[in-house]
C-alpha cells in the first residue's frame, strides 16, 4: 500500500522510535498544559512539543523520505527552522502580555519583586539616588 514492506530494519526501527518519541513528548506537553495550575507554568508546556517533539518527527520524516525517494530530502528541516524561530517570539510576547495584565489587574497574585516593571524600578532607583546626591551636596 505505501511501500513500507521493502524497507530495511536499520531504517524502519530508528524512524519508528523517533516518531514515537516525538509524539509522546508532545502528549506529555499537552498533558502538562491541562494539569498545571498557573499560567506561567503552562508557558513551559508547549516547548516540549516545539523542541524535541517537532525535532524528532521532522528528522524521522526526513530519513524516511530520503530513503524512499533515493535522494536527499531535507525540506522538513525548513519547518523545524520555522518553528525554532517563531516559538520564542510567541512565548516571549505571551509572557510579557501576561505579566502586564497581571500587574494591572491583580498584582497581589504576583511575587513582591515582580509587581513593578523593570524600567519603572530603575527610574525609581535613579530618582532616589539623585535625591540622596542632592541631600549630600546641600549638606
Amino acid at each position, binding site marked *: 500500500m505505501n*511501500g513500507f514492506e521493502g*524497507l530495511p530494519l536499520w531504517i524502519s526501527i530508528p*524512524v519508528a522510535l523517533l516518531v514515537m518519541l516525538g509524539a509522546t513528548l508532545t*502528549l506529555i506537553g499537552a498533558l502538562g498544559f*491541562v494539569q498545571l495550575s498557573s499560567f506561567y507554568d503552562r508557558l513551559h508546556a508547549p516547548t516540549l512539543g516545539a523542541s524535541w517533539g517537532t525535532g524528532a518527527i521532522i528528522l524521522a520524516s526526513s530519513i524516511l523520505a530520503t530513503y524512499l525517494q533515493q535522494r536527499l530530502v531535507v525540506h522538513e528541516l525548513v*519547518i523545524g527552522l520555522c518553528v525554532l524561530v517563531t516559538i520564542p517570539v*510567541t512565548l516571549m510576547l505571551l509572557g510579557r*502580555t*501576561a505579566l502586564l495584565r497581571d500587574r494591572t489587574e491583580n498584582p497581589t497574585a504576583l511575587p513582591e519583586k515582580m509587581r513593578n516593571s523593570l524600567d519603572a524600578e530603575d527610574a525609581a532607583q535613579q530618582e532616589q539616588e539623585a535625591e540622596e546626591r542632592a541631600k549630600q551636596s546641600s549638606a
Partner: protein
Amino acid sequence: MSGMILTFALGYAQLVIAIAACLAGSRILLGPRAQDRVLALDTLYLTVMLLFLITGMRLGSVFLFEAAMVIAVMGFVATVALTKFLFRGEVIE
C-alpha cells in the same frame, strides 16, 4: 516486518498527537483567561501541524507536508496578532 513496525509506530503517533490536540483544545474552552486561550491556540496549531506531518508520512504524500508548512506560518501570524491585541487592546486603553 518493517511495514508492521512503521504502521504501528505511525498509528500510535497519530493517536497520541490527536489526543494532545484534544487536550490543547480543551484548554481553549477552559481558559480561564485570554492569554491561556491564545497559548492553547498556539499549541493546537503546533500539534495539528505535527499530525499533518505524520499523516503525510503514512500516506507517502508530499501535499500534506506543504499544508503543514502553511499551518506553521499561519499559526505564528495568528498568535502574534492575538497577543498584540491583548498587549495593546484591552488593558491599556
